[in-house]
């Protein structure tokens, strides 16, 4: 008994292993193979080696998509992290009204990316949108601003909507972290005459270090794969202004039916995901992440 493997135990892990091997690992390896094919998914495929890789990098498409993805990543972190941290700390406070606020703050968590995307597309609609009606009534700007149809604005607007969707989740993380900070630390600080800023920077922030790391890892790895919202809001447009890596992959493979090019982008996506995870774990220590994950 105890620690030995027997056939029953092999049988117990079999379902998980089979599912994962067939529908996750095997497709991952196939993606690498497909990236060397010239294939539309229907007629017979032709092996072209690294030709797809060459063309993706030569015409700058991959680099453009990578750059947009990096922009979304940095911007997401810059917007989501400070707001989530402050909202989380605010909610961890003792006052009764903060708990009430919290009930409303987390409501966006209940909706799917598609639902959120559709809603915001109506709010921002240049013809009958809520935002322009509001701005018009306040005499700000001239109305009819095409928020999502403007090449320079679209990516920023999309990233802000993504932030709106995910800040509640990260606020929840920080609230949990902030609630764990022992009261004795704050009491000691008050006795030492610390004001509210000292307390925040010398107690709250250092105590939230691991929550900050966890949340940041999730923001960074998450922003690599934003797709649903972008699909609903802009479909990668206007032009290719919001064609991030995941969007580019989808369009190449399922719109242009170019399985080879799409797979090149898919492989880049996978490699980026793994590198990002390794870097963050190296940089922060896997044990910290593990200790965060323990005990729910």
């Amino acid at each position, binding site marked *: 008994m105890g620690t030995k493997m027997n056939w029953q135990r092999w049988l117990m892990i079999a379902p*998980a292993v089979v599912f994962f091997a*067939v529908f*996750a690992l095997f*497709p991952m390896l196939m993606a690498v193979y497909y990236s060397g094919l010239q294939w539309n998914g229907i007629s017979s495929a032709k092996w072209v080696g690294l030709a797809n890789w060459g063309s993706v990098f030569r015409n700058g498409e991959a680099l453009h998509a990578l750059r947009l993805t990096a922009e979304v990543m940095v911007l997401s972190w810059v917007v989501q992290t400070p707001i989530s941290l*402050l909202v989380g700390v605010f909610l961890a*406070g003792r006052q009764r009204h903060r708990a009430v606020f919290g009930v409303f703050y*987390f409501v966006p968590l209940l909706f799917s990316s598609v*639902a959120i995307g559709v809603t915001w597309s109506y709010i921002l609609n240049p013809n009958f949108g809520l935002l322009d009606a509001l701005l018009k009534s306040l005499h700000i700007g001239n109305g009819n601003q095409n928020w999502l149809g403007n090449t320079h604005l679209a990516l920023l607007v999309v990233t802000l909507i993504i932030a709106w969707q995910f800040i509640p989740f990260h606020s929840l993380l920080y609230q949990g972290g902030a609630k764990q900070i022992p009261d004795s630390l704050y009491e000691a600080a008050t006795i030492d005459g610390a004001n509210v800023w000292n307390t925040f920077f010398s107690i709250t922030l250092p105590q939230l270090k691991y929550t900050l790391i966890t949340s940041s890892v999730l923001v960074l790895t998450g922003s690599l794969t934003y797709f649903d919202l972008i699909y609903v809001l802009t479909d990668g447009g206007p032009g290719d202004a919001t064609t991030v890596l995941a969007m580019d992959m989808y369009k190449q493979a399922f719109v242009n039916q170019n399985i080879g090019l799409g797979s090149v982008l898919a492989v880049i996506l996978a490699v980026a995901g793994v590198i990002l995870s390794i870097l963050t774990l190296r940089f922060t220590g896997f044990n910290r992440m593990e200790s965060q994950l323990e005990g729910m």
Partner: protein
Amino acid sequence: MASQVIKTDASVNLRAPRRKRLRWYNVVFTALGVVWLIIAFYPVLYMLMTSLRSQQGYLLGIPWLPSLHPTFENYATVLQAGFAHYFLNSVIVSVCSVALIVGCSLLCAYVVVRSRNRAVRVIFDVFLVGLALPIQAAIIPIYVLITKMGLYDTLLGMILPSVAFGLPLTLLILVNFVRDIPNELYESMGLEGASDFRLLRHLVIPLAMPALISVSIYDFVQAWNNFLFPLVLTQSDSSRVMPMAIVSFQGQYTMNVPVTMAAVILSALPLILAYIFGRRYLLRGMLAGFGK
């Protein structure tokens, strides 16, 4: 003695006003809190208000205020447009996915924790690498595979890959939880010659219940809101799930925003109800063990 009395007196005096005093920064925080309340909650309120408007009311009324004549006709329209069928599809896909993910993960987690076999350790490490693999990176071969299996445009075709990609995180969380069960408990039951299945049933499952509930909720939300699998792996009306239904409503009722908003509200119904009746469980499940 006397000095001590004075001391306690002084501290009591110090504490009393501290609780009552309205500090300027608390006023500022609350004001900022209200600003965030508007940003975070108003769009959801707008969804709800718009879904209760008539089409004329939407085009002619004041968009940021509730309608003077709220109506449920949009909800009726959505229900007549086959909504119940899509809803049921979503339920089937989500429930089957959750059952398979949690079931397979629990069996696997138990073996990972209990055995010292090197191969099992390697398998677990491979699952951990799976945490870093985005679904998008594998969607093209998944599409080819599901098509070749003859499962394109079926609910099962969505369930199978959802299970595969739900496993890594669920497994990791359950392994961490099962690991915390003290060894003595296994030993004491093991001495009585209990089999693995008995240990699972009478020891692990009862103790891991909170974790099982949390991961089930997490996996349910993931499956319920998943968009990429249905987008790529289904096309017809018969296999349409909730997110796809919203997109098709949006295309069908291009100018009739209130109808789409009613669909959006209804699409989140299970989570809205869960939030009303079991907010704490839902939020804990949403964190999936990332928070403590």
